[in-house]
Each structure stands twice: as structure tokens, then as C-alpha cells.
């Protein structure tokens, strides 16, 4: 049953991708609106990530970066982490996994909060961070 975890994650990702292709997040009402954006009108760090993922799936990298830069950067990290985890768990290959520790956790939170603030500043180049 070692394959259960990796298989479940792969199935979930495939289902999510299929959903994003079949149901366009660019249309109003297709998905629930982000509760932070709905209540404040400001962008949260995750706003635009579904549209970014859909753009990535369709090969439009520039549009994906425009929707959510953080999500575009997170995709290769998540893919690498999944590869390392699956290879180790199944005994197929061994590549160094992402070292999780306090430093990484606090860095991620700082990046998250920084992105949150910056994409809400309506000045100059920062506006390109908003979806």
C-alpha cells in the first residue's frame, strides 16, 4: 500500500486539472469567490491562482505569471517535492527532498505576507502582481 499516497495525490491533481480545463475560472460564478477578496475587495496571496493554473495548463506562461506569480513559482517546487517523495517511497530512485525546517517555514510565511502586501499597492510595477 506504499503507492496509495502518491497515487491519491496524482489522482487529485489530475482531477483538479481536468476541472480547471472543463470549467473556466475566468467566468464569474464558476467557482466560489475568495472570501477575503469578496469581503474586502483586496487581493489575497492566492487570488488568481486558479486562473494561473489554467493558463499554465494551456501553455500560456505569460498570462499565468500575470495572474499569480507565487502559484507559478510554487508549481515546480511542488512537482519536485512530489517526485522526491514518490521515488523514495516506492524505492525507485533517490533524489534529495526539499529540506523542511523552521527556516523554510518562516521564509515561506514572509514571502506569502510580502506578496500579499505588495500586490495590493496600486503603484507602478506592483500593479502587475495583482491578478
Amino acid at each position: 500500500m506504499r503507492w496509495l499516497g502518491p497515487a491519491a495525490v496524482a489522482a487529485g491533481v489530475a482531477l483538479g486539472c481536468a476541472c480547471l480545463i472543463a470549467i473556466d475560472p475566468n467566468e464569474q460564478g464558476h467557482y466560489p469567490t475568495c472570501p477575503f477578496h469578496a469581503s474586502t475587495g483586496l487581493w489575497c496571496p492566492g487570488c488568481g491562482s486558479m486562473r494561473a493554473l489554467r493558463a499554465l495548463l494551456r501553455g500560456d506562461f505569460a498570462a499565468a505569471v500575470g495572474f499569480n506569480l507565487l502559484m507559478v513559482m510554487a508549481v515546480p517546487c511542488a512537482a519536485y517535492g512530489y517526485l522526491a517523495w514518490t521515488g523514495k517511497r516506492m524505492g525507485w530512485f533517490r533524489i534529495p527532498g526539499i529540506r523542511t525546517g523552521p527556516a523554510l517555514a518562516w521564509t515561506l510565511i514572509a514571502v506569502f505576507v510580502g506578496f500579499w502586501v505588495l500586490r495590493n499597492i496600486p503603484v507602478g510595477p506592483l500593479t502587475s502582481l495583482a491578478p
Partner: protein
Amino acid sequence: MSDDDHVEWPEGHPGQPGQPSFPPPPPGGQFQQFPGDPNTRIPNHMAWAIVVTITGFLFCWLIALPLGIAAIVFASQVDNKKRAGDLLGAQEASNKARSFAIGATAVSCVGLLFFIVYIAAFLNDPSYFGL
């Protein structure tokens, strides 16, 4: 994922497997078999804490966030306490990190469920959403 979280002991540690003074840790991630044994593997649950904090933020933003942050705080104490020789404290921090991570995971799952129900309702009757 918890396989990645174990603390590896340096070579030559008195509690290394193979030395007669301590029994080796049981395979398969059984913890706290021998309280006070430096061989005991204490998972820090850091990867889980980080992932669930971010997904919790995206799916259920304000409710899962404090739980996830608490999980990260306790997860970051595990390795430090173990390095300082405080095995019981490390185990306690590990258990607390696990509890908060479970809570954040549960809240995230409720958020995800809401998401799925919303999409199902939309597919069932788009006119309900004014489209």
C-alpha cells in the same frame, strides 16, 4: 510524507543501531517504543504543517491559518529540543504539531468540500448563480 521528517543521528552517536546499549528503532515508524532512548524517531511534521497552512489559507482562509501557524511553531521546536537532549519535550512538541496539523487538515477539508459542493451546484443549475 512523514518518512522525510525523521531526524537522522550523526555517525558515531552512542545510540546508533548496532550498538548493544540501545535497541534499534523498530521499522515502520513506530514512535516512543522506548521512552528516553535517543534512537527514538521523533517526526517534526514540518512538511505537513507547511503544506496544510498554505492549503488551509486558500480553502478556508482565516480559520485554518492559526491552526497551521501553531503547527509550524511546534514543529519547529521538535528538532531543537531533540538536539538539546530534551526527548520528552521534543515528543510533546511533535504530538502538539501533529494535533494542530490534523485540526488544520480537517478545516481545510471542510473548505474543499464547500468548494466541491459549490461546483456541483453550479453544474447542476447555472441559472441559480445568475448565469
